[in-house]
Each structure stands twice: as C-alpha cells, then as structure tokens.
C-alpha cells in the first residue's frame, strides 16, 4: 500500500512547489494584513492623545513596527545566509535577495518617520544618538548588500559572497537593539520587549502590536511576490543562456 506523502521542510526547497504554495499563501497573507493594519490604525487614532506630545505620537504606529521589521528582516536574512552557506538551501539566497530591499525600505521608513516625530518632540530632525546612528548604519549595510548583489553576474556566486557580508553585518543588530541601554541619548529606552514586561499603556500597546502584526504579514506577502519574481528572473536568465548557446 503506497504511503501518503507527508510534507517536509526540505520539500520547500523545490522552487516549483514554493511557487505553487505561494499561489494561495500570498493572497492569504494579504487578506490577513489589510484588516489588521486597518484595525490597528483605527485603534491608534481612537487612542487618547498623549499627555506631553499631543497627537503627534500616533506616528509611533508606523515608526516602531518599521524599526522592528528592519531588525527582524536582517535577522531573517542572516539565517538565510546560513541556509545558503551551510545547508545550500536553493531558496535561501532567493529569500535573502528578495528581502534586502524591503529591509532597506523599512529602515528608511523608520529613520524618516523618526525624524518627523523628533522635530516637534525633541526639537531636532536628527541627533547623533546611539540608536539613530546604529539604525543609519543598518540602512547603509542594507544598501551595501543590495550593491553587492548587483555587482555579480552569476547569481550563485553572488549569493555566497552576499551571505558572508550579511553574517558579518549581523553584529550590528544587537548594537541597534541595545544601543539605548549602552548609550543614553535622546531616544527612549525599550518599553515593549523588556525582561520585566512592557511598560507601555495597553491603550497604546494593543494598536501597536496589531500594526506590527499587520506590517509583518504585509512583508510576508510582498517577500513571497519578490521571491517569485526572482525565481522567474533566474529562469529567464537560464533560458536566455540556453537559447544563446543553441543559436551558435
């Protein structure tokens, strides 16, 4: 009697299977993301105005999820880099390449919303504070990774080179996270992910977490679209090479 095939993690390594799965995962993630973001923003606008800052604090519901995502996307990319170098997972570098522009975008959104928030509250658009500087460094590392991807012609060679750079750059992630504890500057200290639990009021914490979840699902959907594009791009490249060889 033939056994029914069971799904394994290694099955995801097959690009065709991935593309088939993404056919229903992308709409699913998008359908989850949109109402979550809408509800999160609605709650965010319903929340009472902050005592000192008035209403400007509401930019937090974009700023903080972007910062979290910029950090977690890099962490995901570092894991994918391990997947490329250690397990030679064929989709790891596709995920890594596709994620880099999103990471850069979230880092940029975090920096821009941060300075828009900083001007009315701190009185300055920019301060060379530990958190701000290390976030800017993270943004630069993202740009370096994207440039290195574009410098190589051969995707597999690029994948391994970028994987090394990504792993070396991972050192910056704990620096960004703990920068507010190591150097006290203008930026406030962690108020959600703390050992003794969040210190933020639930009226602000709930919309924040819902927004963060919404942005995460949005990222997941966009990442899978970008990965599919990358898989197609590589297929086109291989087919073009074959066609060129046959034409000779």
């Amino acid at each position, binding site marked *: 009697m033939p056994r029914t095939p069971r799904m394994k993690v290694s099955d995801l390594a097959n690009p065709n299977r991935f593309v088939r799965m993404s056919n229903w995962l992308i709409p699913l993630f998008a359908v989850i993301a949109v109402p979550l973001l809408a509800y999160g923003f609605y709650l965010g606008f319903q929340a009472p105005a902050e005592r000192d800052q008035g209403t400007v604090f509401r930019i937090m519901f974009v700023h903080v999820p972007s910062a979290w995502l910029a950090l977690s996307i890099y962490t995901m990319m570092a894991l994918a880099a391990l997947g490329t*170098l250690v397990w030679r997972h064929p989709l790891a570098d596709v995920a890594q390449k596709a994620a880099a522009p999103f990471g850069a975008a979230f880092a940029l959104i975090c920096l821009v919303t941060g300075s828009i928030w900083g001007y009315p509250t701190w009185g300055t658009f920019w301060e060379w504070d530990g958190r701000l*500087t290390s976030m800017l*460094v993270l943004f*630069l*590392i993202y*740009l*370096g990774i994207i*440039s*290195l991807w574009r*410098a*190589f012609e051969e995707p597999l*060679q690029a994948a*391994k*080179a970028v994987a*090394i*750079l990504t*792993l*070396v*750059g991972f050192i*910056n992630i704990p620096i960004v996270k703990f920068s507010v504890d190591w150097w006290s500057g203008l930026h406030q200290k962690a108020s959600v992910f703390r050992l003794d639990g969040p210190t933020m009021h639930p009226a602000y914490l709930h919309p924040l977490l819902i927004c963060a979840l919404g942005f995460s699902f949005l990222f997941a959907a966009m990442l899978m679209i970008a990965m599919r594009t990358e898989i197609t791009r590589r297929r086109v490249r291989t087919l073009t090479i074959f066609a060129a060889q046959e034409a000779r």
Partner: protein
Amino acid sequence: MTRAIFAIVKRDLALSFRAGGGAGVGVIFFLAVVMVVPFAIGPDKKLLSQIGPAILWSGALLASLLGLDRIFGADAEDGSLDLLLLAPLPLEVIAFAKAFAHWLSTGLPLVAATPLLGLLLGVETGALFAIALMLLIGTPAIAFLGLIGAALAATLPRSGMLIAVLIVPFTIPVLIFGTAATTAAIAEGLLFGTAFKLLCALLLFSLVIGPIAAAAALKIGRGT
C-alpha cells in the same frame, strides 16, 4: 609557515613600492583631503585646530578605504591568487599576511604623515603624538576589516568604489572609539582610557574576523 608568511609580506611590499604599486598614492590622497577642508570651511585657525583630529581621522579612513581593491585585485588579474589558493598554507594565514603587508605599505605611511598634516591644521604639538598613536591602532583595524570587502570583490572588475561602500558601515565603530580616544587624550590628558581600550579591542577583533571571513569569501570567489 613563518617563512611563507614573511615571503608573502616581502613580495607584497616589494610589489607595492615598485613602479605601478601605488603605495604612496594613499598618503597623497590623505594630504589632498586635509588640504581641501581648510578651503571648504575657510582659514579659521581656531576652528581648524579644534576639528583637526576629526579631519585627520576621516582623511585616514578615506585614504585607507581607497586602496583596498589592491590587496587582491592585481593577484586575481595575473593569476597569482590561484597559486596562493593552491599553496599548502591556510588561506586565513595568507589573507592575514596580505592585509598586514597592505597596512605596512599604505596604513603606516598615513600614521607617519599624521603629525606633519596635523601641523598644517594647527593642531597642538602635544596632541599630534596622541593622534598618531590612535591612528597606529585604528588604521590596521580598518585594513583588516577592509580585507573582507577586498576578498568579497576580488573577482569583480572596477571594485574600488564597491569595496568602500561595503566596508564603511563596519569601520564606524573604529572611527567612534578612535576619535573618542583621541579627544580624551587631548582634552583630559588621558592616553589609555576606556575608549583607547575599546579601540584596541576592535583591532584584536578585526585581526581575527577579517582573515577568517576573507578566506571564506576567497574560497567562494574561486568556486570551491
């Protein structure tokens, strides 16, 4: 193994100091950067002597980044990199020797030129020694971090700018603690303070991580 390391260092030094090596260009670039700043901000003697250490640090950083493609570029072109990869010597050791030779030929001249350029900027004579000492520790750290970028881009043509872009974010801690140590030395006369120790730690860190990551990158570049 020691003899092999010395042989690599000697060869790279000879190559960089002879015609076409371009060892002196870094110092000239350093001079150019230092010369440009007074034109840009005006000949305000007081301001210049105040920001002099910072100008020297940024100039040295830029000059160090400039020549990084020379570490492996020429060797990848003429095939000697393949011979080095075949050599019965750990690749990490080869990378270390090459980065050390690169620092000797490009970094050390920068350190030597620092007191002179500091005088041009009107930095106090007492501070010149402190800046040179900090650069003596900071420039090898930059060179060994840059080694990673040089190895990643070894097989790429026209990689100079790319390497600089890749490596700048990683050199920022060196710059932060280097300038902090310099400021502490000048303002408080504290030569061996916390920032100095952290700068030394960064140097030791880069001496280890640089050759290891560079060796991994070189192996990949050659498809092994």
